């Protein structure tokens, strides 16, 4: 029983990390209709940024998250304005091609700049844990989970309540009507993409404190984020949390009951299942 409780806690905390990684991907996909294959590469860049801030400037990875997010927002804004805006109305294939290209370029630039050495963001408390009787809760993962929830709820409120958030939703729903109401889509798209990349950057900082960083972590993270976004749905940021939690718990249970090689089989199996059971809502976004 203790083991099961522990596994469930592990799964939920893992899910929180997954959710924050997928949040930006889901936002960009939902609003811009771009499946950003470079999302994982941006997470990797955010992780390196947080690593540099911590290693050279001594900025705590959690306190440094806003700074990481702001820098990544700037990068995202520029990439969208300078590159992605050229293909924002183009067929899906072109957006996949260009974001795939960005992922490859970022990965290889990262190896040239940072070498293939493995890095970890390792503040003294990163390995601490809270013991609740026989069950152990890792501190860094708990904090990451808290931040994931806070950011998701924050995103939700932002999209529902603020002027900018409403403009973003309006543009996603009906571009012509939004423009008639005075929304400037080019700026708005860039801001949305910037927010997506800022979230990726923040996720990268958290990922670096619980895992290891190298230039090649991006592709696998993109795949995972993609699955989470589909399972959770793109309509609502809260869906991403649900998607992340479902995936985290299922993977942990699969390791316990079926075997560790089946974690990915289980998570992508769930993906396929969701696509079968709820195809209409999901295909609407991807087509």
């Amino acid at each position, binding site marked *: 029983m203790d083991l099961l409780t522990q596994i469930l806690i592990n799964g939920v905390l893992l899910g929180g990390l997954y959710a924050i990684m997928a949040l930006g991907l889901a936002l960009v996909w939902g609003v811009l209709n771009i499946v950003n294959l470079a999302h994982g590469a941006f997470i990797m860049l955010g992780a390196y940024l947080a690593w540099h801030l911590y290693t050279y400037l001594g900025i705590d990875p959690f306190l440094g998250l806003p700074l990481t997010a702001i820098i990544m927002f700037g990068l995202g804004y520029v990439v969208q304005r300078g590159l992605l805006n050229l293909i924002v109305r183009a067929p899906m294939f072109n957006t996949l091609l260009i974001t795939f290209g960005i992922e490859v370029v970022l990965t290889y630039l990262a190896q040239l700049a940072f070498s293939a050495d493995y890095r970890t963001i390792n503040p003294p408390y990163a390995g601490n844990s809270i013991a609740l009787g026989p069950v152990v809760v890792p501190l860094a993962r708990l904090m990451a989970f808290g931040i994931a929830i806070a950011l998701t709820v924050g995103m939700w409120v932002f999209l529902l309540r603020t002027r900018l958030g409403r403009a973003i939703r309006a543009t996603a729903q009906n571009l012509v009507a939004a423009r008639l109401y005075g929304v400037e889509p080019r700026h708005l798209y860039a801001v949305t993409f910037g927010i997506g990349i800022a979230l990726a950057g923040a996720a990268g900082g958290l990922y670096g404190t619980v895992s290891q960083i190298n230039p090649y972590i991006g592709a696998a993270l993109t795949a995972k984020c993609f699955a989470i976004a589909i399972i959770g749905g793109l309509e609502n940021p809260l869906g991403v949390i649900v998607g992340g939690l479902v995936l985290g718990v299922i993977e942990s249970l699969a*390791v316990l009951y079926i075997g560790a090689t089946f974690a990915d089989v289980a998570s992508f199996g769930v993906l396929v299942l969701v696509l079968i059971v709820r195809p209409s809502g999901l295909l609407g976004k991807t087509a």
Partner: protein
Amino acid sequence: MFKPVSYLAGALLSATALLAAGPAASADDIVLGASVQLTGPLANTGRYYKDAYEFAVEKINEAGGVKVGAEKRKLALKIYDNQSDVSLSVRQYTQLVSQDKVSLLLGPFASNFALADSAVSEKYKVPMVQGGGASDQIFSRGFKYIFGTLAPASNYFGSTVSMLKELDPAPKTVALLYADDAFDVSVAKGTRPLLKAAGLTTVMDEKYTSNASDFSALLSQVKDKKAEVVLVAGHETEILNFVRQAKSLAVAPKLYSFTVGVPSDDFRKALGSDADYAFGMTAWLPTAELKDKWFGDAAAFAKAYKEKFGYDPDYHAASGIADVEALAQAVENAGTTEPQKVRDAIAKLKFDSLYGTIAFGESGQIDLPQIVIQVQGGKVAEVYGAKGFIEKPHYPMPAWDAR
């Protein structure tokens, strides 16, 4: 609309071209060809081979080159970047022998690569001496043209298991975790009978997916099943995650040992003081006792290597040096670069190098004993060798909050 895409493609192509560039060879150089992981997830270890190959070739050429019959000929290298992609690596070896017409082959890193690439050397009957693949599978197919300078994977934990029997208090239960690739499966296969013979109870025997990043579920089971010893056969990224997550979940078995990571500089840097107490093994240590014709001895080699490349060599680098030296020595012994004759000379080799005595068994693989090592206070200590304990192991590992 397609402009930015073509720009990107152009930038990409030129970047790849830069990475694949090598020194120009003159017409009568003996060209050694290899496909190595210079980019991609395995680039971290791949660089040991590129640097070692280049360093060895440089040293041998400084000493005048290789004596072939009456004349002295220089060595040259042709290295391709396989981007950590096995199928690309096979294509590149095919290109090396069929189009580039290299004389002899050096290996890639990692067993699954060597497993696939050795089919090329066998088909074209060009000998390959490789120092990156230890899996017994590579040498169990009766191939004649593949030689390996890494000790057999099946025996990686051999010395560790011998040590377990002599520890006080002696551990009783073991968890064996391994990644699902050629090398790690061979390690697990070889370790099981050793554990059984040592009278240890295996409470967990679990395979996991290569590149797994979350070990929390496995670690929780290690704790639940009260495994006193945890043996992990995997890749360095996985080991890093494993140790970090063990700490954050407060899982502290009496001893844990890893097939990779512990000997490498990079591993200890990434983990800092959390790397302490981790056991590992190496078939090579940079001692002055290992004499070498070109480098003097292993200690001098390690120093020169660090100065040249800025990081400490580990057994991968020494193994890579041994590969080049084995080919050079075999060419001298054969008195020709004709591949079949060189092949026969390699099979008969027996010479001392900075890596140890190079001599290949019937299957083509070297046999070297593994020395048990442990990270103690941020440094690698030799703990257990063929003659028993060398330095006192830090055992049992204390709880994480008691360090």
